[in-house]
């Protein structure tokens, strides 16, 4: 007579009991590690960048540089008794793929934070999601202003500065150091080179009331630049500024020389690297630009040589052209992140990490890196770039330092 009714009660009680038991177990686990990606002995960092496609030279270097740093940090005992691990996703230099990668890292891999070694193209696809999500994203390479403006508490820009600052330094260098008043710009049509071109154009207008005499664009993957170069030649510039990828810039420079154009070249930051010289060869002689680091990997500085030696020991089979500046940037930025995680303490949370990052003052991972400073008001770690020029087939530092006060930090006041 109790039959079905009592069986039903017992079943319900069993189900509820199992539910609460599982919840208690989960809660117990979570009580040891409230933050995703943080356990008593590990911290999982998610990372993304292009490891396929034409921008793979930055993502591959970003991944490898960061991995080298993590390996060293773990070998030295980790951070507050926790070992770092990294889960890396390819974004193919596409905003949609980048967003998918970040969502996977956060929602499926449950990482503690995001270390971004993507270009501006990919990074911008993730900004809105990350802002809303609240996970810390530390951006090592992307120079798009959207990373740090409007200000978001959980977004940080490390070794590379933002592109309006590029514009300031480029304009000052071209106008006051090279004494050039007629500047032509040839830029790729994707986000980053377009931003560089826009920043230079804007700053030439703001500070010197001038405009480029010609501006032409090219598509990524183009192999012939004759139409654009002839257009620029007609404007008779003193300097040709090229912003894009090393492969395309090298071809454009060679074709310009072949067309009898003897103007000096000024190159965007991603091209101040050995990979451009491999293809451009003699056409690059005399070209100048700004490096993202105080020292290039080809430098004879003892500290850089020692760093390159240990990098090659870790990656013995990688080809010529590596390590590049992005290897060094991501390596030193991972150390900056690790330093902040350490200062955040054993009871690691997103808020504590943000507080620790904002307390970072002139941190640098040795002479190979730029000093980084974050504050509660802005998260732009670095405002410095190093002027370089190609002399006898090598990039050499130029004794130029921007003297004009930057307009960028004013908006954060």
């Amino acid at each position, binding site marked *: 007579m109790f039959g079905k009714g009592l069986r039903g009660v017992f079943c319900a009680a069993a189900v509820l009991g199992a539910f609460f038991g599982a919840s208690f177990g989960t809660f117990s686990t979570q009580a040891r590690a409230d933050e995703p990606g943080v356990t008593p002995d590990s911290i999982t960092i998610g990372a993304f960048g292009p490891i396929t496609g034409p921008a793979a030279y930055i993502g591959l270097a970003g991944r490898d540089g960061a991995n080298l740093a993590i390996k060293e940090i773990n070998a030295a005992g980790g951070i507050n008794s926790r070992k770092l691990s990294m889960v890396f996703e390819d974004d193919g230099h596409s905003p949609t793929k980048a967003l998918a990668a970040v969502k996977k890292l956060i929602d499926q891999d449950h990482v503690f934070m995001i270390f971004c070694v993507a270009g501006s193209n990919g990074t911008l696809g993730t900004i809105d999601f990350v802002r809303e999500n609240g996970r810390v994203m530390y951006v090592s390479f992307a120079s798009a202003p959207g990373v740090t403006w409007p200000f978001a508490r959980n977004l940080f820009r490390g070794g590379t500065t933002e592109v309006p600052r590029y514009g300031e330094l480029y304009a000052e260098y071209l106008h006051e150091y090279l004494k050039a008043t007629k500047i032509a710009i040839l830029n790729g049509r994707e986000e980053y080179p377009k931003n560089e071109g826009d920043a230079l154009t804007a700053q030439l207008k703001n500070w010197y009331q001038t405009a480029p005499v010609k501006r032409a664009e090219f598509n990524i993957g183009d192999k012939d630049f*004759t*139409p654009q170069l002839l257009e620029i030649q007609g404007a008779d510039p003193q300097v040709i500024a090229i912003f894009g990828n090393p*492969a395309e810039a*090298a*071809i454009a420079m060679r074709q310009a020389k072949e067309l009898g154009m003897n103007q000096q070249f000024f190159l965007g930051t991603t091209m101040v690297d050995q990979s451009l010289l491999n293809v451009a060869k003699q056409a690059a002689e005399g070209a100048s630009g700004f490096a993202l680091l105080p020292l290039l990997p080809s430098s004879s500085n003892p500290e850089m040589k020692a760093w390159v030696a240990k990098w090659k020991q870790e990656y013995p089979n990688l080809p010529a052209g590596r390590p590049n500046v992005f290897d060094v940037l991501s390596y030193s930025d991972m150390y900056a992140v690790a330093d902040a995680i350490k200062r955040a303490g054993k009871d690691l949370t997103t808020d504590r990490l943000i507080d620790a990052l904002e307390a970072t003052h002139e941190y640098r991972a040795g002479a190979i890196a730029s000093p980084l400073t974050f504050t509660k008001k802005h998260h732009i770690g670095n405002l410095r770039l190093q002027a370089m020029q190609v002399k006898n087939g090598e990039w050499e530092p130029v004794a130029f330092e921007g003297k004009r006060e930057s307009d960028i930090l004013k908006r954060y006041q």
Partner: protein
Amino acid sequence: MTWRIILQLALSGLSIGSIYALVGLALVLPFKASGIVNFAQGEIVTFGAYLALILSGLGLPYLAVVPLVLVGAAMFGMATERLLIRPIANQPEFTLVIVTFAIGFIIKAAIRLHWQDNTFSIDAPFVGPPLVLGALRLNPAYLVFILGTVVVVAALFLFFGYSKFGKAMRATALDPIAAKLMGIRIGSVFSAAWALSTMLGAFVGLLLAPVIGINPEIGHLILKGLVAAVIGGFSSLGGAVVGGLLLGLLETYAGAFFGATFKNLVPFGVLILLLLLRPQGLAGASSVRRV
């Protein structure tokens, strides 16, 4: 726009068009012989460039690298046809298309495993200061592209027109069953067609490597090669050449007159217009169906 600029653009358009023509030829050859479009042809170009890089790294001069790359590519083409294509030759066309895509992906992935996406270069005797012809400047490499295409077209013309094996290939392309009945070993014909095709693709890679650098993405030329082949009529070798040159000129002038955005827009727009007006292409034959 001055006449100097117009002529300079024409030189540039013809040189890049020569590259498209060679890729188009490399696509048409196996199609005529075996009815298969080799979508791995772009990666064959890349393969040729990397093979040149390896051989240059061993200290061989460019002129010694060229025949070795061509022989290596021919062997690769024959092996691909014999081991991967022939066993599935009777499968639906779409299966064959997917297989050629897969071959291309595998080549690119294998290249990336070792070289990743870094850019390299090799030295070549035709890379040097420009030749000055009055107000015009001609990149010697571009001259080599154009002359190389002329030589290849002439060689193919002589081969298919006057050699026994070339005639056998033409016969097989016309009617494989009849050719077989006449004693032609059509398996050898298919292998030869693929070998020729991969040699052509690798030749393009050899030409491009010293000029634009070597990276896994140089093979995206296949799209332009396909357009060249379609413009010319996919069954015509001469048509592929004309199509390639026309494409190069259209692209260059479109970029000069309308900007970078139109470099691709205009040629592909012309392609669609051409196909609407003349679906068989410039030199292709209309298909006849007896009812």
